[in-house]
């Protein structure tokens, strides 16, 4: 090959690089290792992490069973090792699954259109906020304090340099739902959107439509956020919302210490030109057969450049495929039964603990331990091989003695009983 290229050594290919920028040594990295050694290294790291613990952590990342079919499908090289489906003739597999994904997200959320996915829920929220700003021509966002605290932080980072003001509104101390009076007071004619989460960060189901009515009266949009997709198997979707931004981690995406996950944005058809992210659409091929392709690409960065709706280049195709397989496996009956199990488990756990808020909850709730530190309680639990809930003081100083607990279909009655008994001691 060198001869064919007319050079005598591989180094000749780099002879045009200025000598002062060349690295004149090998990279200081350990020598290459065998499959066995690498495998052993990662097993050792995994063993340093929590294994064999029961966990009541939720807070945006949920411990749901992952049907084996999911890995079977996403391990297929045709899905795993393909690129973004620009060449439709040889990408119909990926394109068809994206189209099915978009359809199922619409069915779940009650929206008319959904994109092919976003990086994650936390980045879908600012993208939805910017979308509302484009549609309304306004630049103020009102965000519920019951939106996931890290999502709010991401939103502030994105908004800061776009000339968008982000202001928070509160929750009611009794129910843990958004304070509609506070929201109404803060709404003005510059507000592009009201952003809230349901079930909210405390696990409580919000009356999204009531908030939407307030927003709409002032010409603002309503963005509803979900972090626990399993809840949609049971919960009526917010029909009055204008944009729904969500996280699909619950749908067979392993927690993986925080990512990769898949987010999604769904909305009304009339807003589609302002929606960020990839879209697959149905059309016909030259033989007249049904076929799919990426469409409405003129919204995107590679064409519109600095005027694009977002700088996002791609979707989370493989992760979205996990969610698609999950939704297929559970299907119409399964998503409901799964949601009902989650509801039952969380209510069982809650029945044995002091609950902070009275609002209706799905599979998470806030427990209050006046006079005690949640960290101390969690320390006691660790001895029983239980990872307790998320202490809330860091995010809500007023909830310093509270923790957020989650029970899913994976939580057994026995684990929950142990948790309650340790607490009672």
């Amino acid at each position, binding site marked *: 090959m060198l001869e064919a290229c007319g050079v005598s050594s591989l180094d000749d290919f780099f002879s045009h690089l200025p000598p002062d920028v060349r*690295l004149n040594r*090998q990279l200081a990295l350990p020598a290459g290792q065998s499959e066995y050694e690498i495998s052993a290294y990662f097993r050792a790291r995994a063993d340093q992490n*929590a294994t064999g613990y029961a966990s009541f952590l939720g807070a945006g990342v949920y411990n749901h069973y992952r049907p084996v079919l999911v890995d079977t499908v996403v391990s297929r090289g045709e899905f795993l090792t393909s690129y973004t489906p620009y060449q*439709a003739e*040889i990408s119909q597999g990926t394109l068809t699954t994206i189209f099915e994904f978009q*359809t199922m997200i619409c069915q779940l959320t009650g929206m008319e259109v959904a994109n092919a996915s976003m990086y994650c829920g936390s980045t879908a929220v600012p993208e939805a906020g910017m979308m509302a700003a484009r549609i309304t021509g306004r630049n103020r966002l009102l965000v519920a304090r019951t939106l996931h605290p890290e999502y709010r932080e991401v939103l502030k980072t994105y908004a800061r340099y776009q000339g968008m003001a982000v202001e928070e509104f509160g929750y009611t101390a009794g129910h843990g739902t958004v304070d509609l009076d506070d929201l109404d007071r803060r709404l003005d004619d510059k507000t592009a959107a009201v952003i809230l989460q349901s079930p909210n960060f405390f696990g409580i189901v919000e009356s999204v439509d009531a908030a939407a009515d307030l927003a709409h009266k002032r010409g603002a949009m309503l963005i509803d956020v979900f972090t626990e997709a399993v809840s949609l198997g049971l919960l009526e979707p917010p029909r009055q919302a204008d944009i729904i931004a969500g996280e699909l981690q619950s749908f067979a995406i392993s927690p993986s210490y925080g990512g990769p996950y898949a987010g999604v944005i769904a909305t009304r058809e009339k807003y589609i030109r302002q929606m960020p992210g990839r879209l697959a*659409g149905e059309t016909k091929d030259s033989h007249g057969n049904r076929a799919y392709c990426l469409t409405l690409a003129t919204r995107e960065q590679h064409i519109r450049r600095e005027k694009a709706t977002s700088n996002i280049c*791609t979707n989370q195709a493989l*992760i979205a495929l996990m969610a698609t397989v999950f939704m297929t496996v559970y299907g*119409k009956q399964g998503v409901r039964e799964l949601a009902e199990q989650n509801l039952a488990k969380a209510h069982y756990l809650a029945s044995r603990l002091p609950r902070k808020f009275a609002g209706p909850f799905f599979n998470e709730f806030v427990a209050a331990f006046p006079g005690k530190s949640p960290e101390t309680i969690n320390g006691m639990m660790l001895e029983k091989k239980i990872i307790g809930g998320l202490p809330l003081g860091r995010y809500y100083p007023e909830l310093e003695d509270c923790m957020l607990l989650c029970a899913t279909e994976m939580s057994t009655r026995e684990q929950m009983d142990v948790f309650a008994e340790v607490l009672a001691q």
Partner: protein
Amino acid sequence: MISKVRSHVTQNEPLLFELSSPGKKAYQLPELDVPPVDASKALGAEHVRREVEGFPEVSEVEAIRHFTRLSTWNYAIDLGLYPLGSCTMKYNPRLNEAVARIEGLAWAHPYQPESLSQGAMEIMSALESALIEITGMDAVTLQPAAGAHGELTGILLVRAYLESLGNPRKKILIPDSAHGTNPATAAIAGYAVENIKSNDRGMIDLELLARVVDEDVAALMITNPNTLGVFEEQIARIAEIVHSKGAQVYMDGANMNALVGITRPGDFGMDVMHLNLHKTFSTPHGGGGPGSGPVAVKKHLEPFLPLPRLTAGHAGLRFDYDRPRAIGRVKAFYGNFGVIVRALAYIMAHGGEGLRNATMDAVLNANYIRKKLEGYYELPHRAPSMHECVFSDARQAKQGVKTMDIAKRLIDYGFHPYTVSFPLIVHGALMIEPTETESKRELDLFVAALIAIAKEVEEDPEIVLKAPYGTRTGRVDEVTAARKPVLRWKPAD
């Protein structure tokens, strides 16, 4: 002669919703071990839906066949060369998939106690260190979810840094050869974009650059090697010019596969850059994601890196949230950890010397293709190629055949097309990046295919214009898709 492929039967398959029939199921939940809860009572009847209307109902066999049949309609690296320029479609080692699935890693919750997360944090720390050594930069954040996300993070860092000096400045300079993401990113970070024209060698024009850099310029965003696959030989001088006016240099690391082990951005004056773990470090593209876009910076930008920062404490690794100058978070949690695991496994398998060899092989493969094809396709820029080469369709266009037609015909020969019509500075571009993981045999088949197509264009251009023939799907009507968008399935009326 088409030697790599012959056609075979593929299965037809309806959409899930058309396959669905009431009552079928592919799941089994354990029996509930706690009392059932009446949803209407617990949540309020108004909050409970009747059903998820239209959701599929299929059996397990139907589900697996559905997705398996669909999968056979895709091309993939596992099937052959995937020479998309700027995308670095290299082999995705399966060991990386296996280690990412180890339970203690795959099932680690981001909020589990730090004392029970040391393994995950050590992996992140090891990757940060390796990327610092590879790039020659001073610090790395693994938080960004993809390349474009890394770009945004990087430009926000520049903005925060300049702001701390009293003036965030107004605009970002971007060469006309850049990826479309660069201007989109600059706009999202609140900057105006000024495009700068490349010179006739496809490189940055130093005189022009010196004229346009002033105190309003926040940064130059540069891709090196650029989108022509050419190393900016004056890169150090470019950095000097930009720095002389107090501006920063951002390097788009999309083409880092040409540099690893050979030269380091930190050593040629770059202030901030992103890496694409799904390109250079072999993590699977997965049909469009997930990616991961770590950002590497010089010391002066380190205080602004996103929250939280991984640091060494006396009881092991911990996350530091107390960083008042940080730009904030760009994503919940700590980054796409599953992708980070895979990239570290790749680096460990190669070692320093192996990474350098990979770079050299990638450059060899690109130059081999260039040499073999330059007699058949126009080479608009003759500067030495690094990891990719860019031809144009100038010769074939005389017969009415465009780069997209050649791309479609390549499919019949059993290959995924190259990147079509990019970079924009080359009219009718064929942008080819073979990567190091292709054998000479696969490269020769590819070269033979493109030569055969060039001959077809000479003899009977119609053959090429109507391609592909061998695919189950013919050319797709993208115009109708855009004019009358159908973005979800609906039951027939």
